[in-house]
Structures are given as C-alpha cells and as structure tokens.
C-alpha cells in the first residue's frame, strides 16, 4: 500500500500539522512516511501545502505531481490541485469559501463542512482534525488509535488534555463526510 496525498489551504488552517499527525500515525503502525511542505515566502499569509506519503515500502520521490488524494481547503488550492488528482483518485474539500466547485468526473469527490462544524463545536482550531476525520472515513489507512498515539508522541505533555477534544473533532469529521 502506498498513499500519496496533497493537503492544501491557507497558512494557519493547520494544513502542515494535519499532515504531520497523519505521518506520525503512519510511524505508529510501522509504515514508511514522508512529509514535504511548501516552504518559503509564499507561506506567510498565503497558501500552504504539504505532500504526505504513507507506504508499506521504501518511499521514492517525496515530491510529486499527481496524487491519490487531494485535500483542498481554499479556492487557490482548488485551482492548483484539482487537476493533480490521479484518475480514479479522491478529492476531499471544504466548500467554505469555494466559488468554483470541482468538476472532474473521473475522480471521487467528497465534501466536509469542517469550518462550520468546528465553529459549532466552539473551537475553530480543531478545523483540521475534522478534515482529518473525514479523510480517515474515506481512506482508513491510519487507525484512530494510532492517530491518538501519534498525537501523544508529537504533542508536549501540557497539551495532552486537548486530546479528547481532537478525538471528538475526528469523529465529527467521520460522521459528516458526504460523497458528491
């Protein structure tokens, strides 16, 4: 199994940390992982994206032009990455702020209203975990228990009290993803 993912949105949405949690979860289940962010001036206030690969085998190129899954969280990223999904692949997006919805017929498109759900839960910071939950429902490549283990390993001890909230957000995402 090799899953090649691009996660793209605005800087500050938690795009990079969502990728990191995914990568950490892969390590927790003894898989090979790579996490490559876009870095440089474009990150400040602009778009941010990260390529994550989770695989049972040694990972070749950490930089890619086509993906099994694209997780798209703003219009600029939709314009840039809708066409990068491999035929038969998956596109997951939050319709919040999207004007031009994806049109491709050769891929499976899902939506999760993560920004709205996170706001309803009273904490917009867990937005990315709602999106992660939606992704985990579509492609259960990482197990919830391993995500929690990964969170415990990657978060400093003082933030561990927030893990149940993150778990709720993941469940919220899992229960609210719809195929378009």
């Amino acid at each position, binding site marked *: 199994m090799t899953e090649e993912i691009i996660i793209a949105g605005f800087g500050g949405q938690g795009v990079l940390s969502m990728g990191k949690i995914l990568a950490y979860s892969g390590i927790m289940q003894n898989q090979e992982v790579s996490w490559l962010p876009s870095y440089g001036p474009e990150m400040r206030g602009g778009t941010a994206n990260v390529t994550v690969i989770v695989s049972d085998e040694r990972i070749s190129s950490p*930089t890619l*032009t086509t993906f099994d899954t694209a997780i798209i969280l703003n219009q600029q990223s939709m314009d840039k990455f809708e066409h990068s999904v491999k035929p038969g692949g998956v596109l997951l997006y939050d319709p919040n702020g999207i004007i031009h919805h994806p049109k491709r017929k050769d891929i499976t498109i899902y939506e999760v209203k993560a920004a709205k759900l996170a706001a309803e839960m009273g904490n917009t910071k867990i937005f990315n975990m709602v999106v992660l939950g939606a992704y985990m429902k579509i492609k259960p490549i990482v197990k919830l228990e391993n995500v929690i283990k990964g969170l415990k390993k990657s978060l400093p001890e003082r933030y561990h009290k927030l893990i149940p909230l993150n778990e709720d957000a993941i469940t919220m995402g899992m229960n609210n993803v719809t195929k378009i």
Partner: protein
Amino acid sequence: MGELKLMKGNEALAEAAIRAGVDGYFGYPITPQSEVIEYLMAEKPYERTGMVVLQAESEVASINMLYGGGGTGKKVMTSSSSPGISLMQEGLSYLAGAEIPCVVANVVRGGPGLGDIQPAQSDYFQSVKGGGHGDYRLIVLAPSSVQEMSDFVPLAFDLAFKYRTPALIISDGLIGQMMEKVELFDQIPRLTDEEVIKRHPWATNGKPVGGERRILTSLDLDPHKLESHNWHLQAKYKTIEENEVRFEMLHCEDAEYIIVAYGSSARIAQKSIQLAREKGIKVGLLRPITLWPFPKKPIDELTKRGIKGFLSVEMSAGQMIEDVKLVVEGRTKVEHFGRYGGVIHSPEQVLEALEQKIIGG
C-alpha cells in the same frame, strides 16, 4: 532498535550532532538550514552532554572557530547554506592544509549569488573540486533521506578523524525541510580531555613534558618543504580514494540505461525508474553516496557491461556529469538533465529526458 521519531532533515542532523558526542557547534543562521541551530539552542545540549553551541558573528567566524576547536582535537561542526558556505571556503582550505578534522554541513539552495531559498544541487563543483585555493580535497557525503542526515554525522566524524581532513555533508532544502521516520542512534559519549590528548597526538592541546612542540599551520615559505607537504596530502587523498568510496545501486542487474543521481535527485529518480519500468524501459540507478571520492569503478564496470547510456540527473546546469564523462571516456552516451535555480524536477520530467536524450537521442 533505536528511538523512532518523525523529524526534519535539519533537526535529524542537529540531534545526530549531540548524539555523535560533538564538543562544539558554531553556526550562523541561514534558510533553509536554520532549524539546525534552532534545534540545538532549544535542546540545550550543554545540559545533555556538555556540548557547546554558539551563534558566531558570521560564517567566516564559524569556520575559524572550527580551526581553533578542531586544532585541539575536539569534535567540532558547523552548518550553513550555499552563500554561507562560500564565505567558509578560505577557512576550509586552511583546515585542509593544516590537516584539522571537522564536519561542515551544506543544505544547498539556489544560486549563484544570494539566489533563493529553494532546493538546488549547484554546489557540486565547489564541494568536490576544491572551493578554496590550493590542491586539496574534502570528503563529501550526500545523504538522500532524513535517516542519512542522522547517520552521516558520526560517519563524517569517523572519516574526518581517520584521515585528519575536513568532511562535508551536502544535502539541500528538500532533504533539510522534509520530515521522515528516523531511527536515532544511541548517545556516543563525548571524549574526556585526557582521552582527546591520548587519542590525538597531533593536536595542539599543550606541549607534553619532554615531548615535541606541536604546530598546526598551512604556512610554509620554503617551496620544497611545501611541495613535500603537498605530496603527503596527495598520498592521503589517494588512500581515501582507494578505501572510502560509497555508493548504492538499485535495479541495475538487468538495466540497459543508468540514471546517476545523488541526494534528493536520487529520490526523485527512483520514482522515474518505477514509471519507466511500468513502460518496459530497463533503467537502473547509481547513487553516489560519497561525491568525493567519486564512485568511478561501478560506472566503469557498467560501461564495460554495455550500458546504452547514462543520464546524470542533478538540480544544476550539469556539474556531476563531468565526473561521469571522465569515467565513461566516450565509450557510451552521457547526457545531463536537471532543473535549477531552486526549481525541482518532477519524476515525469526525468523520465521524459531519459526517453528523449538517451533512448531516442
């Protein structure tokens, strides 16, 4: 099994410096390698092992701190990115001339000049052909994963001390910024002062009672003496060439074509090879791990075996290709492909270049 972590290449390099028992790190921040000094400052290695971490006033100061610290037989290290490494070239020449061991890491970015902060491999010439003045060589190791960013730190120190010469770890913004799974090696204890004195009889850490004065210098105004010193250096470099070549071969057994690539280009090329083999093109990868000494023998053997062509893939305008050509000597086709100035080639572009320049050309 050692501790498993998800780390950036730069962080793995920094953690490896602590675990390798380094005595002093002297550096100056520059993108895309600033995480090295950031990590070291945050990790407070002084409390863990007694290791000194110092932000110098410039790259020129850092490299000369290596001359001073390394001269006493201590394990010393610095890191920077291309423009900063250019500033260190004078110091590297002096270190090589005075035969002082040390480790320098270059996380390469696009050039020339101040360039940009994106990944590049355009410092190959500077690294392997002698970026400073005089006849000298550096041992040059090219990691292509975060794991190797960690593993090559103790290896670089072993080689630097074995041959009393500076060793360079050359990666780029991609390897430095990328996170991967890394298995950390166990802490290697720092040597005590007594152990340093006993182990390195050349080091300038005090004249022993009844012993000879120790002088570390690259200056000798007598040309005949300087020529003998150069003969000694050249003999040492020959020994290194004979004993320390490192490389990796993938899918070469049945290959008709070979991609030669190091560092991040070697990672990208592995995907290109996968795509090529899906189309029935038999191509393999030769990955130099030591850029100097360059793996001449495997390229010669592949040429003798009748390889139809070599494609040197580098994020540069074509630098390593010269070393490939020096081995092939016109016996088969050798071409270059690469994007540069901070642009990273895609696996598909590498495959297209192979088809057009080598197979179809």
